[in-house]
């Protein structure tokens, strides 16, 4: 282990420019990934806020009986993705209208009859609603004979979920593409490092050094280069975040888990790319 660390450190010392450039290349590739994560996280966060507001409202006929309503609450509450079903009586609906709309408050005293219908408001578990599940719950609510009308802003909900789906696919494709680019860059950087040491590797094989002894310092170099690149990318992303936050608009910083994950990814990509480059080189010599 001592030799592995010593040789890896020696590799950095012998070619500081190469190491610096490799880390810079990796850092820039991961920076793009970092920016992309920042954008993705904020879009997801915005979509999640909107999703929390998605609800289905079933307006009840005057003739609806309490037992029927209770049964509907049980049935709808048991549907997948439903968090809660709340009953609002005619009186509660009027009271809410008075609070939310001052115009109603002024005229309501003159009303002989309460025009607001009783309703069932169905809320969904965070992250679980889809256009299909919301539609299914709305259809189930419409099926009760004492339900007069069901509203949930169908078009709006469908667009919202389409946006989320596009976001997920874009994340997958672009994120994957940038990850591949980062791996290729690290791989190329390590291949250059391996090439710079080709004489040493040749001699090591010639005199009977074990392959693991040849491979380990280069693996460590790859992992450290990945870590350096990852750290650089995190700093650049943080700088970009601060600039946008203070100069353009407020946005959320990516979750710490994502950032640590990104650094770990840098280390893993570095080690993996290094391993591939060394294996390939060892096959050739």
């Amino acid at each position, binding site marked *: 282990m001592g*030799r592995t660390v010593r040789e890896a450190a020696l590799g950095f010392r012998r070619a500081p420019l190469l190491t610096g450039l490799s880390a810079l290349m990796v850092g820039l590739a991961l920076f793009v990934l970092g920016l992309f994560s920042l954008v993705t996280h904020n879009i997801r966060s915005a979509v999640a806020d909107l999703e929390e507001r998605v609800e289905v409202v079933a307006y009840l006929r005057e003739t609806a009986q309490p037992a029927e309503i209770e049964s509907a609450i049980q049935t709808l509450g048991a549907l997948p993705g439903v968090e809660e079903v709340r009953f609002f009586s005619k009186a509660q609906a009027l009271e809410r209208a008075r609070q939310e709309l001052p115009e109603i408050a002024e005229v309501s005293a003159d009303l002989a009859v309460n025009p607001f219908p009783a309703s069932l408001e169905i809320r969904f578990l965070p992250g679980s609603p889809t256009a299909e599940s919301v539609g299914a719950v709305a259809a189930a609510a419409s099926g009760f004979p004492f339900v007069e009308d069901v509203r949930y802003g169908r078009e709006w909900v469908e667009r919202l979920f389409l946006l989320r789906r596009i976001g997920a696919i874009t994340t997958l494709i672009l994120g994957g593409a940038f990850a591949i680019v980062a791996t290729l860059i690290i791989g190329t950087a390590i291949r250059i490092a391996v090439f710079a040491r080709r*004489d*040493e590797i*040749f*001699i*090591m*094989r*010639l*005199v*009977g*050094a*074990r*392959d693991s*002894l040849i491979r380990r310092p280069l693996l460590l170099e790859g992992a450290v280069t990945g870590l350096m690149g990852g750290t650089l990318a995190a700093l650049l992303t943080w700088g970009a975040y601060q600039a946008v936050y203070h100069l353009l608009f407020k946005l959320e910083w990516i979750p710490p888990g994502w950032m640590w994950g990104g650094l770990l990814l840098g280390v893993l990509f570095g080690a993996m790319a290094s391993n591939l480059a060394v294996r390939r080189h060892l096959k050739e010599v």
Partner: protein
Amino acid sequence: MIKLLNVSKVYKRTGSALEDLTFEVPKGQFVFLTGHSGSGKSTTLRLVHMAERPTTGEVRVVGFSSQRTPPREVWKIRRRVGFVFQDFRLLPGRTALENVAFALEVTGAPRGEVRAMAQRLLSKVGLSAKAASPVHQLSGGEQQRVTIARALASEPLVLLADEPTGNLDDRATRGVLDLFWQINALGMAVIMATHDLELIRSYPAARVLELDQGRLVFDSHQPAGGR
């Protein structure tokens, strides 16, 4: 020690390099492997060093068979079979001592003893005074002595040399050859590839194997049959 049994080697691009080669080298023998350029000398040495595997036939070296030794085990053979090249293959920018020490270190010599061991090896090849010299400042003959010291680092049983005097003048050539004989006298088998017939004639005690177009056409230990 070394046995080649009906060995053939065919390359995809250049075709046949060796054809049905069979010979044996016992412990402590000095062998000149000769022939024209392209006759298969280097290929034979590479097969003995397990840098390549035969297309057909079997190579047995210090108890390892080409048919049963996986690539991950080849390092064990390399520690028992030293190799010297015509173009030295030294690490540029390092001293003679550092070049030998590198070989010792990567083959597991105790770290605290590496320098002393490297110094002893350089003394063995008559180069102790040049231990601290960067290799690019050494003459061809001196550089070749460093490569020999490096090849001896793991105390091999066999020393392979591929045209080791090809880049040297007459005096340096004699010096290197004498060194090989001294090493051989200690019990190490030496197989040296060369096309220099003058050199071969001046060491009549050595066995001579001659290759032509990948075939063994002369073996001085079996003069009547040719092989």
